[in-house]
Structures are given as structure tokens and as C-alpha cells.
């Protein structure tokens, strides 16, 4: 029976509830998870909004992300500095955007960012190759990888610049029936 500590103010809870897809309980759960990643760094009391950021290596050690081939990209996309250092807000944002109830449009935007390895706002052939290598873990031969990437770009590229812009990507994703269920991180 320790002293009951308020972790967030009511106003903070309301803000989180309005800006993310999480309920109060889930926000507290997320805070617990964030705290246990680095107990000596993350304060239990967030009422004065401390600016603590956890490095990429800690975040990707979470069981939900550990085996994910895109874990580094996911964390980088949601970090403010693009290097993967997440504050609690970014942490919540990450799980909120990838939760079950997030709308398709939001998920598409973030999926595009995640797959864009060189962060040039386009999915070029190198991005696709990297994606494919991470997906198949080196089981495909280089010729097959090359072939798959060129075919994929051929299929999805609508404006003919041999790379996929966001609208090409969005158009392609809109035809995928299981995108919403696969692009979902459970916490």
C-alpha cells in the first residue's frame, strides 16, 4: 500500500482521450509500459509534463516490436527528431495511430511514412527493396527481389515517374481489404 500518486491530471486525461483512440485506463496502461522500459528515467508523475525521451534501442526492446521487421522505422516515424527518441506523447501517438480503431486514412499516411526509408516523400525502388528484404528475411534471390520491386512499381505507379507518391500508395491501399487488420499493433 504505497501512497496513491496521480499520474495525470484530469485535463491531461481528457486531452489524451480526445486526441487519441485510447480510454483513460489504456492511457494509464501505456504509461505503465513506458515506465517499465526505463524505471529510473521515466517519472511516475506526469502532471507537470516532463520532457523525458527514451532512445530507440529501449523502445524496440518491447515484445510488441521486438520481432517486427519494421520496428526501427516505426519508432523513427513517430519520433520528433526522426532518430527514434520517443517522449510519452510520441509513444501514445504511435500506439494510437496503429490501434484497431484508427481510421484508414490515418493508417495509410503513417504506413507511407514507415515504408519511406530515405524520407523523400516517395516510395522509390530502394525503399521497396528494403521493405521486401525485411519482409522475407533474405529468402528471395536478388533477381526475384528486383523483379518484385519493378513489378510492384509498375502496377501501382499512376503518374509514371517510376516511384510511388502518396496518392499512388493510397490508391493501392484502398483496394487492399486486409490493410486495416494487418496494420495494427496490439498493446
Amino acid at each position, binding site marked *: 500500500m504505497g501512497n496513491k500518486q496521480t499520474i495525470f491530471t484530469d485535463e491531461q486525461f481528457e*486531452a*489524451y482521450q*480526445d*486526441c*487519441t*483512440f485510447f480510454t483513460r485506463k489504456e492511457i494509464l496502461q501505456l504509461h505503465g509500459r513506458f515506465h517499465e522500459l*526505463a524505471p*529510473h*528515467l521515466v*517519472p*511516475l508523475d506526469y502532471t507537470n509534463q516532463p520532457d523525458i*525521451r527514451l*532512445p530507440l*534501442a*529501449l523502445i524496440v526492446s518491447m*515484445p510488441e516490436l521486438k*520481432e517486427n*521487421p*519494421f520496428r526501427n522505422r516505426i519508432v523513427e516515424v513517430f519520433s520528433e527528431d526522426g532518430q527514434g527518441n520517443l517522449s510519452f*506523447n510520441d509513444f*501514445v501517438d504511435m500506439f*494510437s495511430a496503429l490501434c484497431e480503431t*484508427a*481510421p*484508414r*486514412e*490515418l493508417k495509410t*499516411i503513417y504506413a507511407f*511514412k514507415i515504408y519511406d526509408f530515405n*524520407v523523400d*516523400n*516517395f516510395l522509390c525502388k530502394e525503399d521497396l527493396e528494403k*521493405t*521486401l528484404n525485411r*519482409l*522475407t*528475411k533474405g529468402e528471395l534471390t536478388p533477381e*526475384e527481389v528486383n523483379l*518484385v520491386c519493378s*513489378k*510492384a512499381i509498375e*502496377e501501382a505507379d*499512376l*503518374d509514371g515517374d517510376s516511384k*510511388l*507518391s502518396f*496518392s499512388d500508395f493510397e*490508391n*493501392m*491501399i*484502398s*483496394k*487492399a481489404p*486486409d*490493410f*486495416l487488420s*494487418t496494420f*495494427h*499493433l*496490439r498493446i
Partner: protein
Amino acid sequence: MDHNVNFDLTPHHMEAGLESPVDEEGVHDSFNQLIEDQRQEAFELQELQRELDEEERDSVAYLSSPGREIWRGGQGRGEEGEEGRQLDPLIEERWSSATLRVLSSMPSRTIGRSRGAIISQYCNKTMKLRRRRQSRPSIKDFSRSARPSIRGYGVETGGVETDGVDGEGRKRDHLVNNLQNLSLSDRVRMLRAMPLSVAEKSELRRLADRKGLRSKHSQIPCCSQLKYNIINALRHSWYSCLSFLHSLQLWQVALKRGERQYTPPRLTQGHVAFSGLELLTGGGYFSDSVMYYGYYSNSTLYKNCSISSSGMDQQPSHSPSKRTMETDCGVKLSYNMPLAYFFTIGGAFFITCIILVYSMSKSFGQSFRIDKSHGILAMKVFTSWDFKVIKKTSVKLRSENICTQLKELLEETNRKHVQKTVCQRIGRVTVHGLAWFICIGSTVACVLALYYFSEYMHKDLQYRSRIPTKDPLLKEASLLALPVVVSLINLLLPGLFNATAWMEEYDSPSVHTYVSISRNLMLKVSVLVVLCFHWLGRIASDPNSIGLQCWESFVGQELYRFLLMDFIFTILDTFFGEFLWRLFFSEGSDLLQHPGGDGQRKIISLLQEQIENEGEDKKFLITRLQAIHQQKPPFSPRRLTSQASQDSNG
């Protein structure tokens, strides 16, 4: 109403409508204005229905052709450019879609999806949503030169930001203003769907809330809504229960009437004592029990249609032979019981089999699907990875599966491009031929072996039945021999087929799967044919030779034995074959690996990881402390660490 409706959408008419002397703003509108408004609303609703309702956007039928998308996007952008010009004096020129595309590829505009672009896009969205929610767009919202055109999608580039930060700030205020005027649920929905960081969203929310009311009453409708939903669900389930019971009633009457017509034979008591072997053989004590008791008889039922009796009082009579009898009215109505049983049970098995196969393939297909629709290679690359999968083995399985699917897709598209030399082709055909020879040969060999073995067992059974048995249990146990042999065949031969498939080379994994399925099916069907011959040809033709009155019971018992043996063998195979194999011999396991070296390696890797993490933590702490020290000189680092330790202890 036959006045002239003018659909000319020029600003001039709009203004004329607004400036009409009769027009008391907001109170009285002319019919033209009304019709224009309705039309605009319809357009807007159409557009918004498509754009803002995320669920409806998933319908593939709408988003079928990419060409249409381009048109909509391009058109939208063009229109939006125009619209933006009208509503926002910042936009000086009208951008065409091609220009916008060029703009979007400029390096300054493509640094991420800039915040300004997102804000402006959502500004427009909230504007539209606001307008949609109001029953009639208020006239104040239309500037003098507002064009009631189709509002296109928001500009996704930073094309709006001509003034840099200032432009963004203004757009932001605009967005906040719009958010304020939305209803609470719409505001929340908008906020949640924005691809901005949580900090920015909460800032926007705070600004929007500053003036707007935030009542606590939003919670209460939620609770009562839930209550209503629960009540509705309960009521619905209760009604469906009642209707189901009512439907049962109907069948009950017909069933009872049918039962009354047919009186079953008497059940005789069994004289054999219960021994444990009955559970395996299904005979002995069970043979006179309810397990083999039913409405079955190997006679044919007839209906007497004598002229004197009325149509309702027909009593079925039994006839010992299967030949038909002449009746008074010359019409024979017969019901051959064995055939009826055979077709009913056979039909039931068949339908169950179809249902099982279908449901299994569907559930399998959900995790291991190979789509055959167009344009899926790209889709497969981007949407096949399931982010929910966290176990290492599942991850490995999944990536292998994706690999297989991609290879399959590639093979489909590349079939025409690959040219093989004649030599290679002949080599492949030879290997395939050899594999098929082995498979068919082994199947035929097993079938023959089964045939002769069943003949031997049959003779053995005849011998035992003739001589008074000293050991009835042994006789019962000998019946188990055939099921064991068949189960062994069913277990071992597919393994052989697998082994031969390894040496073969297939173009695509699906062909490989179909070939192995067909081989297994061939084996199973031939075994079944031999067994049917054994039962129907040998046992049914002469049941007395093995001391049976009713061969059908014996065949029923045989089926029971076969099922049970199959079940036992499957359990054993699953346990020994799969579980223990995986535990000890698969690459994921480390039970049988060299304990010493591996343990050391593990410890070293753990230490390494720990050191790395600690190093990262230290670096991180040092940088943070430096930053704090630079910001606030009087703040001593010692207080921070003591506070941190206090927090971790508390």
C-alpha cells in the same frame, strides 16, 4: 412550381440572389437561392460522403479504376485551387493539377508531410464538415464572390504556404475556429484522425476549447446509449429464441406422427459380460446395446392400399424378403430400408466432409491466402505483414509464407518469359515420372498387401468362429489387426510421398500442393475401395460363416474400430512426431544443443546487451543533464538524481 430554374453557377447570379431587394438576410430566400442551396448541399453531401466517411471508402466497387482517382484528385486540386483563391486571399494564382504535381516534387515542399499542409487540409475538411452539419449553409459563410462549385479535396502539398510561418499561423487559427464551431463528437473525430503529433493536437484542442463550451453531459448520452443497445440486443435475442422454439414445434408433430406409424423391434438383453476390450473393438458388451440399436431393419416396408380401408389408416407391414408383392390397387409403394440408410448416412457424411473442408480452407486461407486478383504484387508487399504477430516462430512462419506467395505471384506473371533447354526439360520430366512411379507403385503394393491381409484375417475369423473359443478376448483383439495395419499405411505412406516430392522441382508451390493432395487422395480412395470390397464382398455375402446374424452391426463395429485406431495413431503421431521432434531437433530449440558453450555464449550476449543499454542510458542522461544545466544554472544535478531515485523508490 414551373418557374424557370437556373442552374448557371456563376458568381453573378449568386450575388444577384444575395443582393435582391427582397432578400432579408437569413429570413427569406428566393426559390432560386433555395434550389441552389439544396443542390450545393447535395453536391457537398455526395463529396463528403465519399471523402469523410472512412468506412464507405473501403468499398472496392467505388474505387475500382485508378483513372477515376486521378481525375478526382486532379479535378479536386484544380477546383480547390480556385476555391482557395476565393476564400483565402493568400492564393494568388490558379494551379492546374500538373503544376501542383511539379510543385509537390520541389525539395522545399517535400520535407515530410509538412505540418502546414496538414493543417490547411484539415482546415478545409472542418469547414466542409461544419457546413454539412448545419441544415442550411449560413449566408455569412459565403463571401461576395463565392462560387458554389464542387469543393475538391484539400491540397496535399504545401502550396498554400506562400507566406511561410505567417501563412501557417493564419491557417491554424482558421482551423481552430472551425473546430470550435463543430459539435463535440465531430471535433473529437477530426482531432483523432489528424496525422499530427499528440502534443500539437492537444494544443489545437486547448485553443478550440477556450471559447467553446465543454459540458459534462457528453458522458451521459454515452451511458444511456449503451443501456439502450444492451436492451435492444437482449430483446432481439429473446425474440429469436421464441421463434426458434416455435419452429421446433412444427417438426415435432411430424416426427411424432412418423414414429407412431413404425414400431421398432424389441431390444434383447446382451449376455456377454463387460470387459475393457469393448472400448477398442466396439463389440462384445456393446453389440446388443443402444449403440447398434435403431430403426434399421434389412427389410423393405410396404404400404397396403386395400380399397375398403381409408387413406389415413395405412399400416406398414414387414416382408421378410426383398421381393415386391402385388397389391389390390396395383401400385406398389416400397421403402427399402438398407438403401435408405445407406444414402442418408452417406449423404450426411458427404455434406459434413464438404462443410469441414470448406470451413478449414477458409480459415486457413485467412492466414495463408494466395489472392488471384489484379495488381496485387504491390499490395502484397505493403499489406501482407501482420503487425500483431510477435512470437519469433510465428514471425518466421509468416515471412516464409509471404515468400511463398510472392514466388507464386512471380511465377504466374513470368511463366511465359522463362525458357528452358530441352535437356533440362527432359531431366525434369524424368524426375517427375520417377516420383510418380514410386508413389503409384507404393500405393498399389500397399493395397495388394491390404487385400491379402484382410483375406487372411477373414479366414482366421471364420476358423475361430467354427471352433468353440477358449479365449473370446483374443478373438475380439484379433479384429483390431486390420485397423492397425490400415492406420499404419495411412501414416507412413504420405511421409514417403513427401520424401519423393523433395527431389522433384516445381515451378510454383501451388502445383506442388495440388500434386501431393492428389497423391494422398489416390492412396486413401484405393484403401477405401479395398475395405469396401472386404466388407461388402466377403462379410456381407456370407455373414453366417463368421457367426453373424446381422452383418451391418459387424460393419458398424469395424468402422468404430477404424475410427478409434486412427484417432489413437494421430495422437501418437502428433505427440512423438511433431512435438518431441520440434522440441529436440528443430533449429529453434536449444534443449539438445551443447550446454556449456551455448550457456557461455548466452551470458556473453546478455552482458553485451546490458552494457550497451547502460551505455545508451548514460549517454542519454549526460546529454539531458547538460541541457538542463545550460538552461538553468542554479539547478544542481544532484537534486535531479536524488529526485529520480526518490521517484523510483516511491
